[in-house]
């Protein structure tokens, strides 16, 4: 039984756009990885039955901590790692079954901006050539490359003179702009940003977020924006999905999720963010412990061991993702009690049960 059965029965998805206009439609996506160093066929589930939609020109933010499966979702969508089950439809077309040339052509619809601006550009090519590679992939004739690269650089706010430079000669923010230019080169409809601003300096982060917003408004791009930082998501995302242990535990319009979280984990994530001038000298930790390793096998609600609201039912039955009118979904037996949660003083960590075997 999957916790996302109810996702399909979502009714009034007002802010998520009407069904017909969704450009990305993911249903029951499951991703499994081979456990390292094992001879037998031994897999663990990194993403377990995740469903969501992204409307054209809209941004879905996925939040979660390390091991939550949020990057695995991105990689499965991009077909870097093939999903084990489920369906991914982009612009109405099933992409999980694409092979060979069809897969290569599909890739033009969806591009990715990576986390590490130091690693995401080929250091042996000039940044102009890095972008030109994408033009080659899109079948743009070679003589047009120079002009197109200049155009793209202009769109992301880089001077054309930079095309001849190597990645190591640029700053982190400039490199991330090149990455964005490269992603735009094939004129995609969807951009997957995996922690795209996390590695940048704070003063540069805002520039890149603004750039992404501008590009979205100009081109009607849809974003899947993955970040561990809730404050970034609050700014960039129209809808937010919170992942924990490979599942979506809460999904809804960003305003709703931030103002009225219906999962204790979401509440803890928001409470944990230190904000200047807010919460000083207050306990920050709403929950103790850490997310169990992605490979741990748990029954019941995965968050129960850390949850201040957990009761017997949580440890035995996995809560389903239940939709409220308005499209706000949460997978919690005690969703109605989340609002009353306050930060506890006890930060003692119980012995970790999720240790890797």
């Amino acid at each position, binding site marked *: 039984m999957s916790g996302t059965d109810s996702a399909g029965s979502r009714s009034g998805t007002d802010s998520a756009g009407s069904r017909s206009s969704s450009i990305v439609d993911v249903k029951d996506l499951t991703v499994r990885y081979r456990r390292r160093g094992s001879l037998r066929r031994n897999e663990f589930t990194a993403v377990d039955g995740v469903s969501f939609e992204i409307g054209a020109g809209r941004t879905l933010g996925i939040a979660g901590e390390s091991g939550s499966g949020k990057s695995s979702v991105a990689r499965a969508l991009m077909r870097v790692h093939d999903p084990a089950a489920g369906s991914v439809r982009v612009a109405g077309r099933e992409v999980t079954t694409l092979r060979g040339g069809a897969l290569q052509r599909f890739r033009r619809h969806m591009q990715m901006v*990576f986390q590490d601006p130091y*690693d*995401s550009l*080929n250091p*042996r090519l000039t940044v102009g050539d890095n972008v030109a590679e994408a033009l080659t992939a899109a079948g743009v004739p070679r003589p047009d490359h120079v002009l197109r690269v200049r155009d793209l650089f202009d769109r992301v706010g880089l001077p054309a*003179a930079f095309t001849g430079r190597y990645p190591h000669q640029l700053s982190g923010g400039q490199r991330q702009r090149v990455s964005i230019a490269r992603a735009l080169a094939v004129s995609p409809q969807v951009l997957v940003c995996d922690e795209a601003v996390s590695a940048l300096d704070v003063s540069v982060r805002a520039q890149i977020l603004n750039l992404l917003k501008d590009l979205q408004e100009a081109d009607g791009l849809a974003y899947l924006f993955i970040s561990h930082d809730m404050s970034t998501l609050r700014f960039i995302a129209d809808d937010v999905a919170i992942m924990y242990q490979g599942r979506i535990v809460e999904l809804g319009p960003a305003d709703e999720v931030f103002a009225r979280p219906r999962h204790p984990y979401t509440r803890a994530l928001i409470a944990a963010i230190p904000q200047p001038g807010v919460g000083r000298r207050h306990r920050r930790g709403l929950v103790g412990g850490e997310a169990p390793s992605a490979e741990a096998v748990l029954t019941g609600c995965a968050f129960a061991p850390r949850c201040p609201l957990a009761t017997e039912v949580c440890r035995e039955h996995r809560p389903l993702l239940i939709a409220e009118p308005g499209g706000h979904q949460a997978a919690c037996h005690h969703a109605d009690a989340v609002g009353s949660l306050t930060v506890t003083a006890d930060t003692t960590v119980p012995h970790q049960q999720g240790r890797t075997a």
Partner: protein
Amino acid sequence: MTAPPIVTTPAPSGETVATEPAGMRRVLRSLRHDKPALISIVVLVLLALAAILAPLLASHPPLQTYPEGLAANGAPIGPGHGFPLGTDPNGRDVLARLLYGARVSLVIGILANGLATVLGVLVGLTAGYLGGWVETVLMRLTDVVMSFPILLFCIALISVTGPSERNVVIVIALIYWTTLARIIRSQVLSLREREFVVAARTMGLSHWRVMRRHLFPHLVPTIIVYATLGVASSILIEASLSFLGVGVPVPTPSWGQMIEQGKEYFQIAPWLLFAPGVCLILTVLAFNLAGDWLRDLLDPTAPERR
């Protein structure tokens, strides 16, 4: 081996640099600053010239035995006395053999090793990048070849094909690619997880282009180090083969053979070992230093030396 195109000097903003001459200028400039590399390249050119011009440079034919080249007790004679580097136990001129031997040794060192390198890179790159059953097949094949007793394998192969320079080259290449294939594969395994390679894959480039343009250039440093060291190994494997009588057919001189033979007479005629030994060391050193220089030249992130 296909080298990636020489990159041009990165232009600071505003400054324009012409593409073609800049590449050549950069080569020359970096050579001017890297004295060991310059000397190495000179040595390699001289070695090549010596091998090509052997008939002009040698004062004696390499195969001719001279009765006056042996002392009264039948021992080889030392340098001087009309033989600049002395004679071997058969009374042949060591200098002449050295010069002609350079032909065989350099050809084997470069060709056999070059062939092995190409093979190793192709196997390692394909296996590491494609993964799956392709990887399983290629890497098991590598294991099988690695587990052969090398010399036995060579003897068996050559006794079937017959000893000749060409066969020696092929046989050495066939046994020598495995280590490089493994090294390259493991490098590719970590490279393919780097974000720029994932980016290249997800933008829809062909496998061939991803391998050629986004993986291969990053393997070049490893390949250069391995290939330059491999020159020596190949020359020495040829020596062992010659020693066992399955190398280059006998009267033809090669450095390996000469070293093999020189070892026996080391106590009474050390020049027999020194002459080819020094040549081999010089060659290997020159290849390595030139290799280091080439590696830096191809790496745009390497700081330019002043």
